[in-house]
């Protein structure tokens, strides 16, 4: 919700349309009105344009060619070899989409995203509700629970690999102590899936919790008082005050966390490298594999996967936004 600061801002909204129709004079006018705003956003626009826009355009172009390690421009010793890849139209897309591998990866990526986001959200909500009460040691608990967020991602993934280690990891040592056979945490397809989800939830809960805790604190206490007067029980208060009060913050964090989880490269790659076999491979790690691991390195294929991922996420964001709008949420 943008707030109009001044006369100019209020006018500007109306002026936009007028300015477009008036040509150069209008442009000058628009410049005079909006130069503050444009100056302030210029650095972002510039950096994003160059660093994201250009690679994106190039990625889309590559996905329409047959570029791979052998035919891109490269330098071997003193010789420079010109690029010799050709434009092939939509061939890559037909190839990828008709390949069952893509659909397998897509199904697992969706399962992974849905499970991770819903578990993270549920845990974050529960913990935020607990921390939103008044009791001794609250600050301490809060700090301990946010800690996973403060540790660089690959360090915590390493820490988990250390715990999960089949022969020497502490988890299996503890199970052994209890007389339970060692669990192949990262070596069995099903366990590996559970393990990557566990680690990702562990990494994601602090962000959820902090965001929801903030949301809880912005719900006016009077609402609870009024509900209590009307004889609402704890569950009813939660259902009819807390949840609606958290709506807008939830919508934002769920959207962001869905996008982040869908593309969560480091957790999968560092924990299992997509394995055992290809059981934990999600779309992003597969795209990475095409470009960096497979031989010959298939740049066009990788770009195709990348464009498909982006398209899926954009469709998701649009649908999500539209469904919010239908329910009267302005975003």
């Amino acid at each position, binding site marked *: 919700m*943008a707030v109009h600061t*001044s006369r100019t*801002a209020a006018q500007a909204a109306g002026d936009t349309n007028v300015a477009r129709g008036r040509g150069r004079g209008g442009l000058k006018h628009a410049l005079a009105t909006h130069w503050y705003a444009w100056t302030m956003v210029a650095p972002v626009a510039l950096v994003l344009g160059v*660093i994201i826009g250009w690679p994106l355009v190039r990625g889309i172009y590559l996905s329409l060619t047959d570029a791979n390690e052998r035919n891109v421009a490269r330098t071997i010793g003193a010789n420079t070899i010109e690029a010799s890849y050709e434009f092939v139209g939509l061939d890559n897309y037909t190839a990828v989409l008709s390949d069952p591998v893509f659909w397998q990866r897509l199904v697992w990526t969706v399962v992974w995203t849905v499970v991770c986001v819903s578990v993270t959200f549920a845990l974050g909500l529960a913990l935020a509700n607990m921390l939103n009460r*008044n009791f001794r040691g609250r600050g301490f608990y809060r*700090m301990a629970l946010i*800690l996973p967020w403060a540790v660089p991602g690959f360090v915590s993934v390493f820490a988990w690999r*250390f715990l999960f*280690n089949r022969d020497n990891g502490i988890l299996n040592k503890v199970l052994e102590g209890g007389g339970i056979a060692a669990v192949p945490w990262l070596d069995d397809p099903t366990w590996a899936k559970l393990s990557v989800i566990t680690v990702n939830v562990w990494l994601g809960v602090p962000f959820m919790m902090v965001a929801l805790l903030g949301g809880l604190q912005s719900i006016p206490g009077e609402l609870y008082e009024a509900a209590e007067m009307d004889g609402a029980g704890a569950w009813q208060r939660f259902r009819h005050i807390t949840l609606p009060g958290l709506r807008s*913050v939830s919508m934002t964090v769920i959207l962001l966390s869905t996008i982040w989880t869908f593309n969560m490269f480091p957790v999968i790659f560092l924990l299992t490298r997509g394995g055992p076999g290809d059981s934990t491979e999600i779309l992003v790690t597969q795209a990475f594999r095409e470009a960096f691991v497979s031989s010959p390195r298939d740049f066009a294929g990788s770009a195709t996967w990348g464009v498909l991922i982006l398209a899926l996420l954009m469709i998701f964001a649009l649908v999500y936004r539209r469904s919010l709008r239908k329910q009267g949420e302005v975003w």
Partner: protein
Amino acid sequence: MTVATSVTEPAAATERAAVRKPGAVRGRGERSPLASVALHATLIGASVIAVFPVLWVLLTSIKPAKDAISTDFVKDPTLENYRYLVESTSFFTWFANSVLVAGVTTVLGVFIAATTGYAVSRFRFPGMKPLMWTLLVTQMFPMAILIVPLYNLMGQLGLLNQPVGLIITYLTIAVPFCAWMMKGFFDTIPVEIDESGRVDGLNPFGTFWRLILPLARPGLAVTAFYSFITAWGEVAYASAFMVGDDNLTLAGGLQTFVTQYTANWGPMTAASVLIAIPAAIVFVFAQRHLVAGMTAGATKG
């Protein structure tokens, strides 16, 4: 400064009141001992799960390397692993590189995110909608796929092996989210403050810099925390763009070390601790503001 305290304090007070009031009214003060025990037990359990993996790495790092896989919590504490690490790697060079890259990314990231957030929050201007969408869409980019084109681009711009190249890349990761959050935060600061600045003859930049920025400190703290963490722990770009011992960042450098000696748990855990410590320090400074800063940012974002 006076403005800042006078406005944030009531805000903090209401926040505290909001927390306390339902408790008092709902008779939470008389929470049964059983409920209290359950609450603490759950939170202790959750805290243990949150802290344990990190703590375990810390404990392992001060065991002698040969005992790294033992399950004792503490065994012959020693700093041997750290000594080994500092002596056999270019640790201090990497550390300096990291501080440079993460520091500059944080300062620039906070500044750029704040100006963008402010512009989007306060003005309606042509290009605002597309900009908001771009900020969201950039979050969707599979970074693994951008690496190759970005590498080529950086090569053409002559920025490979330069801290600048890495800083620009990190800014593109950190700034979109931060700008979103700052927009939400600025939305909660009353417009009257801007207007009073205007009346006193400040231009929009002056208003932003002298009046609004000091009020936005919780938001800035979160933004700084996020930018720093992003830049400090990033590995993929760092190891792709920077070549040679002298140019690597700490995360990039220790990562190569970590994969090189896969069975060598002792020094690896020490390396992890050394990377985590600066991040933890920043976290301790920022965590006071995290909830307040995210509240505004996320609710309105």
